[in-house]
């Protein structure tokens, strides 16, 4: 755009030079002008006085100089009046004076490409002789004055690239001589005035990049001389008027990025001069009219990003001048026609990505021998690539990703010497990379990821010395990384993750000095990092996780100052991590599960953008550096499973964005810093398996987003603060094995999302709060074992319908097992042992092992010994009325049954007597007992007896129960 403008002003200045020369010749005969208000010079000097002219473009505008020699002016042949003023690109600022209106002979006014501000003065409408008005590329604001419509001789009006707002004035329709109207790149709104149809001589209409809305006026069909219609990047809606087809002169039509809907009118096929058609980014639907094939002059066609459907009816054999076809991001179906291309086709770019096209690789395309770029990605193409692919000798980009292509890459691909980009990822390609690939000297990108390719990475690939990007992630490549990889001096991306590569990293890799991303994770690579890595000065990401790398890191790695992401987790690296601290741009450092030792370098805190620091499961010693508190972006801090000592630095509470703080399984000591409670984003806090003492800080109740709170296996004492109830999102709460005392705070019932609660192995006392029964999402476990709880088990615990494991063993609980426990239908591990419970074990528990109930006072019933009469009585006495009713019912029913049976037996006996068969009675007795099962059929319930139900439920999870029981006994 700028380029064109510069050309413009250059041309203008050349003309100007000629003019000045001519003037110089006639200068001597011209009388110096007299300054009075009727002359142009008077007004021009007034105008000059209002302008800021830092480049001195108006320097020779002075009363002593003949006006026709003034810079930028064109005079009439008789040297009396100024007819042209061209100050384009002169760096002038100020506003456009209304006094321009006094230059009444002016035919051309060009103030374009300056720094003019303010509005366009309406007085310009008085310049009745004006034919050309160029104000584009300034900082003009306000509206287009309607007086512009008075300029009846105006032929060229260009106001674009300003900050003009408001609507396009309707008076524009009066400019019947207008050939060029340009108002692009402003802030105009409203609709395109229908009066545009009055502009019979209009050749170019440029409305691009505004906020125009409404329909494209049908009246535009009257602009019969229109060659360029550009209205892209507006908010135009409605259909494309089919009347546009009558614009026979149209060569360029650009309506991209609007909200046009409906189908593409087939009348567009009448635009026989059209060379450029761009409708991308609208809401057009329906099929592409096959009539468009008659646009024989068309060179560029873009219909992408619409909702076009149907098959691809456009054919290059008809569109013989077509160079670019873009139909991406539509819903086109079917295959590409066999007549698509003919030899001699001019097609260079074909973009059909992200449609629903299917079929095999279109062999027809191989006739498009001028083609440079083919993008068929994101379709449903299948089958193998043709070996004759090398017919496309001009091909630079082959983009076939995200289809269902199969088979191996044809070796002939090595003959396409112009190939630069090869995108084949997301298909089902198999087989090896052909060694012929090494002949592609221009190849700069090869993306084969997400395929099923195998074999080794051919050494020949490293002959492709133009390569900048290699991505083979997610294949089955095996063997070593080619030793000669260092030949790829331009390589910036090497992504080999998730293959079966083995062997060491070749030392030559250090010579890929432009490398920015190196991803070798999820392979079987081994050995250590070669010292040559210190040459990779541009590298920002190295991921080596899930391999078998070992050894210590070369000291020289500290030269890598641009490192941002390092993930070496799950390897066997050892030694210190200081070599990784050369960069202060780290965002992720993950060294989980290695054998690193030494201290955690405090200099890590100089990477102020560090978000994830994961050093878990190594042999780090020393203290947690308090400098980590400077890491205000830190989101994840995992130092667990090391040998760290000392306190938790209270400075960590400055890491306000921290969500995961995992310091478990170290040898940390001291009290828990109450300031941790200010970490509002904290979701997971694990300080378990350390030597912390003191209280559980009540301030932790401030971490309102906390989901997992694990403080188990420490020496914490005092009471559980009631503020725990503020943690209403809490899922998992574990205080197991501390020295906590006092009662369970009743506020626990507010933790309604708790599904795992472990308070075992403490000195908690008092009764188990009734409120615990309100935590109805408890599911994984409720473990209160090995405390000093006393009193009766609250029957509210029977509400924990989802609870799968309940352990309240080793307490001093008394009384009976509540009836309500029969509702604990999800329970599959139960431990009530070592308490002072007595009475009948609910029948629903009879499937649990003996160990669930051992060492109580007088528990009885299955699986323990049967209860004595007294126990049963005692149990029954709880609900005398019910029992009475049941007894009455039983008595009545059994009497009835007895009577019925007596009757039946009598009948049978009678029959037997009659038949007089001498058989023994035992068989009969047995049959009757078996028949006894059928009573269910007659009973009002249609479920079997409760006892049966229990036996079936318990046997479901018997193996699990045993395992869990063992686990429980091993705790101490």
């Amino acid at each position: 755009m700028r380029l064109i403008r510069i050309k413009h002003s250059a041309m203008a200045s050349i003309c100007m030079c000629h003019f000045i020369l001519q003037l110089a010749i006639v200068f001597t005969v011209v009388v110096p002008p007299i300054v009075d208000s009727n002359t142009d010079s008077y007004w021009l000097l007034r105008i000059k006085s209002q302008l800021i002219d830092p480049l001195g473009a108006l320097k020779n505008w002075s009363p002593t100089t003949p006006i026709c020699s003034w810079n930028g002016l064109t005079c009439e042949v008789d040297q009396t009046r100024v007819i042209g003023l061209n100050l384009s690109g002169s760096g002038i600022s100020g506003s456009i004076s209304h006094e321009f209106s006094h230059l009444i002979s002016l035919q051309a006014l060009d103030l374009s490409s300056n720094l003019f501000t303010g509005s366009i003065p309406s007085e310009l409408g008085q310049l009745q002789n004006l034919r050309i008005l160029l104000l584009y590329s300034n900082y003009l604001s306000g509206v287009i004055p309607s007086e512009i419509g008075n300029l009846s001789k105006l032929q060229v009006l260009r106001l674009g690239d300003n900050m003009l707002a408001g609507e396009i004035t309707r008076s524009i329709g009066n400019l019947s001589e207008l050939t060029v109207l340009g108002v692009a790149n402003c802030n105009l709104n409203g609709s395109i005035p229908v009066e545009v149809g009055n502009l019979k001589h209009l050749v170019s209409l440029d409305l691009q990049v505004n906020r125009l809305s409404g329909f494209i006026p049908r009246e535009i069909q009257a602009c019969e001389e229109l060659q360029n219609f550009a209205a892209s990047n507006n908010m135009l809606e409605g259909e494309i008027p089919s009347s546009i087809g009558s614009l026979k002169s149209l060569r360029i039509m650009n309506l991209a990025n609007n909200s046009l809907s409906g189908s593409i009118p087939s009348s567009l096929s009448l635009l026989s001069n059209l060379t450029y058609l761009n409708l991308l980014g609208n809401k057009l639907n329906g099929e592409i009219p096959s009539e468009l094939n008659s646009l024989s002059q068309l060179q560029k066609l873009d219909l992408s990003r619409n909702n076009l459907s149907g098959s691809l009816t456009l054919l290059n054999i008809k569109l013989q001048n077509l160079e670019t076809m873009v139909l991406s991001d539509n819903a086109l179906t079917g295959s590409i026609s066999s007549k698509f291309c003919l030899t001699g086709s001019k097609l260079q770019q074909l973009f059909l990505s992200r449609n629903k096209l299917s079929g095999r690789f279109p062999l027809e395309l191989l006739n498009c021998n001028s083609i440079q770029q083919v993008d068929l990605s994101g379709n449903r193409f299948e089958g193998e690539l043709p070996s004759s692919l090398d017919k496309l000798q001009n091909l630079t980009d082959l983009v076939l990703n995200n289809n269902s292509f199969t088979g191996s890459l044809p070796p002939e691909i090595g003959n396409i010497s112009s190939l630069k980009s090869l995108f084949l990822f997301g298909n089902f390609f198999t087989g090896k990379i052909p060694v012929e690939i090494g002949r592609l000297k221009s190849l700069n990108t090869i993306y084969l990821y997400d395929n099923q390719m195998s074999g080794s990475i051919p050494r020949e690939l490293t002959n492709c010395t133009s390569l900048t990007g290699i991505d083979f992630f997610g294949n089955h490549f095996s063997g070593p990384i080619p030793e000669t990889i260092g030949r790829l001096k331009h390589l910036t991306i090497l992504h080999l993750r998730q293959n079966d590569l083995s062997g060491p990293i070749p030392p030559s890799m250090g010579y890929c000095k432009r490398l920015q991303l190196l991803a070798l994770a999820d392979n079987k690579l081994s050995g250590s990092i070669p010292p040559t890595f210190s040459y990779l000065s541009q590298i920002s990401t190295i991921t080596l996780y899930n391999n078998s790398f070992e050894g210590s890191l070369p000291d020289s790695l500290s030269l890598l100052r641009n490192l941002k992401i390092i993930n070496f987790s799950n390897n066997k690296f050892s030694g210190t991590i200081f070599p990784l601290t050369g960069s202060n741009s780290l965002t992720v450092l993950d060294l989980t599960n290695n054998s690193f030792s030494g201290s955690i370098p405090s200099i890590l805190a100089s990477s102020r953008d560090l978000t994830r620091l994961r050093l878990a499961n190594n042999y780090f010693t020393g203290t947690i550096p308090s400098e980590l508190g400077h890491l205000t972006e830190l989101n994840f801090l995992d130092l667990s499973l090391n040998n760290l000592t000392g306190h938790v630095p209270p400075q960590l509470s400055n890491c306000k964005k921290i969500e995961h703080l995992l310091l478990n399984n170290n040898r940390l000591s001291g009290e828990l810093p109450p300031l941790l409670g200010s970490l509002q984003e904290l979701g997971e806090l694990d300080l378990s398996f350390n030597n912390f003492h003191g209280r559980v800080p009540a301030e932790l109740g401030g971490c309102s987003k906390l989901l997992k709170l694990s403080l188990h296996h420490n020496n914490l004492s005092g009471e559980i603060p009631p503020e725990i109830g503020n943690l209403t999102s809490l899922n998992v709460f574990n205080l197991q094995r501390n020295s906590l005392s006092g009662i369970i705070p009743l506020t626990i019932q507010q933790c309604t999302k708790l599904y795992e609660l472990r308070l075992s192995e403490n000195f908690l006392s008092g009764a188990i709060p009734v409120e615990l029964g309100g935590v109805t999402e408890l599911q994984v476990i409720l473990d209160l074992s090995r405390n000093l709880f006393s009193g009766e088990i609250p029957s509210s615990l029977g509400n924990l319908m989802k609870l799968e494991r309940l352990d309240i063993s080793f307490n001093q609980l008394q009384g009976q097992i509540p009836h309500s426990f029969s509702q604990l239908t999800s329970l599959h591990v139960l431990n009530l042992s070592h308490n002072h419970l007595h009475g009948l074990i609910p029948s629903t528990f009879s499937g649990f092992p003996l160990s669930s109930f051992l060492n109580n006072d007088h528990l009885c019933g299955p699986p323990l010994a049967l209860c004595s009469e007294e126990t049963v009585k005692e149990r029954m006495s709880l609900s005398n009325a019910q029992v009475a009713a049941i007894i009455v019912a039983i008595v009545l029913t059994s009497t009835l049954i007895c009577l019925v049976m007596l009757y039946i037996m009598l009948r049978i006996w009678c029959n037997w007597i009659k038949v007089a068969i001498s058989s023994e009675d035992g068989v009969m007795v047995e049959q009757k007992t078996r028949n006894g099962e059928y009573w269910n059929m007659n009973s009002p319930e249609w479920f079997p007896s409760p006892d049966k139900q229990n036996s079936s439920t318990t046997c479901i999870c018997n193996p699990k129960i045993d395992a869990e029981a063992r686990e429980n006994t091993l705790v101490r």
Partner: protein
Amino acid sequence: MEPFISLSFIFLFLHYPTLSLSTNSEGNALHALRSRLSDPNNVLQSWDPTLVNPCTWFHVTCDSNNHVIRLDLGNSNVSGTLGPELGQLQHLQYLVLYRNDFTGKIPEELGNLKSLISMDLYDNRFEGKIPKSFGKLKSLKFMRLNNNNLTGSIPRELTRLTDLKMFDVSNNDLCGTIPIEGNFESFPMESFENNRFNGPELKGLVPYDFGC
């Protein structure tokens, strides 16, 4: 002449695929779920698809092999639909989605969750049928589908679930008869309340989807 040719062609080249980000199918499946959901309380904020696996995402729990075993979105004020991708969580044991505003059908693909122990979909607005594929959930012990808008009959395939201990479909719009085979003989009446059932199945007398 002002320049009129837009740069759309050139932009298309910028569309070119960038590097593959992640392979973890479980993370991708969960991220696909996230993209379907409206999440006013930002409970899914930590679900960053660029991480190696989803194991550090909140409301997701993994086992020691970094396989997702729990998804906890109960009572989280999320709405939207479930998609087929959830079926890729091959190791999932606990699917906890109760008390939200989930709508649409329960995807057939949930039947592929072969490790699933507990499915809590209650108190939502799920509609359509109970997928027959649930008959493949061999490890399932707890299935709570109550308080939804489910229709159709109880698939007989569910009677093959020998581990099933808890089955609750109360407060739906289910029809047909209630199975009595397999573990269904032990489920209480309350599990079937407030539907349009015709009572327990009477073998050989009426088809199980009678009245549907």
